[in-house]
């Protein structure tokens, strides 16, 4: 299967006791350590590993670093379209300073997003007109939710 981690992608095939990573054959073995969790032997090295999954995302802690993996298909995001300004973090819309069809100038604060006592100003990246404003003050939004569509 093809797996991605950030910008990186690799083809991983699992056989009985061998993993094939982009064609490279590596012997592996899972060793249970009781309460201490699991270790994964690759070649002659043992790695301390912890794994968790949320839907199709797999989180791996390995020797002090955390990696997030996804199957290649799920990782593809729809291409960013038109002039949408997306929420950089999940939070609540605290204030909206523009209205639909209103003209904005580059650098204008369009709205304020608040999360965990922190305010984040969403500014116009260029001059334009607000075509669509899907949310109102008080709405909760997820990361990546379109906040303002600029024409």
């Amino acid at each position, binding site marked *: *299967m093809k*797996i991605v*981690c*950030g910008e*990186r992608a*690799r083809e*991983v*095939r*699992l*056989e*009985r*006791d061998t*993993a094939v*990573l982009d064609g*490279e054959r*590596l012997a*592996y073995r*899972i060793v*249970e350590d009781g309460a201490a*969790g*699991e270790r*994964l032997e*690759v070649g002659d*090295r043992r*790695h301390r*590993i*912890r*794994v*968790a*999954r*949320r839907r*199709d995302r*797999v*989180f*791996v*802690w*390995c*020797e*002090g*670093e*955390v*990696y997030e*993996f996804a*199957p290649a298909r799920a990782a593809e995001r729809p291409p960013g379209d038109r002039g949408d300004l997306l929420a*950089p*973090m*999940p*939070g*609540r819309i*605290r204030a909206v300073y523009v209205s639909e069809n209103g003209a904005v100038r580059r650098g204008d604060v369009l709205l304020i997003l608040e*999360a*965990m*006592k*922190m*305010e*984040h100003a969403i500014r116009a990246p260029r001059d334009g007109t607000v075509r669509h404003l899907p949310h109102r003050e008080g709405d909760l939004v997820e990361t990546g939710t379109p906040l303002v569509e600029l024409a």
Partner: protein
Amino acid sequence: MIRTVLIANRGEIAVRVARTAREMGIEAVAVYSEADAGAFHVGQMPRGMNLGPGSPKETYLSIPRLVEAAQRAGADAVHPGYGFLSENAAFARAVEAAGLVWVGPPAAAIEEMGDKIRSRTRMREAGVPVVPGSDPGAHTDEELSLEALRIGFPLLVKAAAGGGGKGMSRVDRAEDLPAALAEARRLAESAFGDSTVYLEKLLDRARHVEFQIFGDRAGHLMHLFERECSVQRRHQKIVEETPSPGLDQPLRSRMAEAAVEAGRAVGYVGAGTVELLLDEKRNFYFLEMNTRLQVEHPVTEATLGIDLVRAQIDVAGGGRLPDGWARLMPRGHAIELRLYAEDPVAMLPRAGEVLEYVEPSGPGVRVDSGIARGSHVGLEFDPLLAKLVVLGPDRKAAIERARRALEDWVVLGVETNRPMLSAVLRSEPFAAGRYATDLVSQLPPPVPAEPPAAAWIAAALAMAPRAGGAPGATRSDGQGGPADPWTDAMRWRVSG
């Protein structure tokens, strides 16, 4: 005699205070908002009081609800932790009016230090140097603009009611000042209910060094050495250490003296912290005083071998400062790392469920945590998840221990600032002890590490089509022997 203490807080600090209470034979009572009923801190105490539904403002920040909860619980004392209402004089008064012991300084001292403009004036009168700033009488845009020219740029616009890095913004040019003032007033009004702002000179490349002070009602007031808090992002600390690598003994003594003087000026009782800025020419200035327990108090506890919360409770109950404190000398070097739920690059808050959580351990390692596996990290609260505090025989060993313990800390499911903490520990200026408040902004953004082959294999095992059974699931269809990778994958413990 305090028998039952209500801990008017949540997260790691509520858990930390409860631990000491239990050691003292005092029953700790948790509080929680309805949405927080399953939170980690609630499960750590034998009893918990439901503050009802609603936002933090209607629950953890509601004086009537908290006082009522304390009375309903039969508590005889209230510990406010830090944040929330810990520096709210009205809360301190309401607690005492209800006949309960307030584990904190006198309400008057909270008030005196809470208004940053007033406290600056008070400190100047007491002979403690303050950061150059605007005249206390300057309020309008016009007055403040004139003051800005006198002080010089860059400068900070600060909220009079602010503190703890909240409610301040940097201004580099005179033409940006009016907009910055308007924005700062709006933020201050919404965050603190008081739109008063003032200006302070921005001391570039300054160090942020604070002194722990402690007083009792018999009039004893002492310092408990310093904490170096210059590693900050967005004016909030992420790494603290003690002793400060920036002080020598004469400077330490002078700063400590000023800190005690600051406390004496407001009749301080209990645990407090005097924050000072130290510039490159080794001039120091009063910044603000925090009239509560600090987030980073454990580094002081580590090098001095004391428990500040125990002393807070003793002193609140009328006790004196512990006898042994007069001879306290720091031993070794302590470092605290704050683990935040945030995007490691953009440093924006992150929410989600903690799918896997394992704390580091070993000699000289302490973790104060507000989360566990299964905890939900929401956006309505401060994103601080937990703190790692290490003690080593010297600074180099402490840094090495911090790096090792940080590596051993497993948090999966919620992004954290761990890459940033790791970058700080590995940076040359930090290793050399020659850094100031601009350290984090000088570091290159953390680059995601290249996953080792083992991580790719682990991910593939977790994604394998037949690996989705419940943990511990065994196959009963007789297919596949112990060497079958799919069977192994099923045994492979996958959280979430």
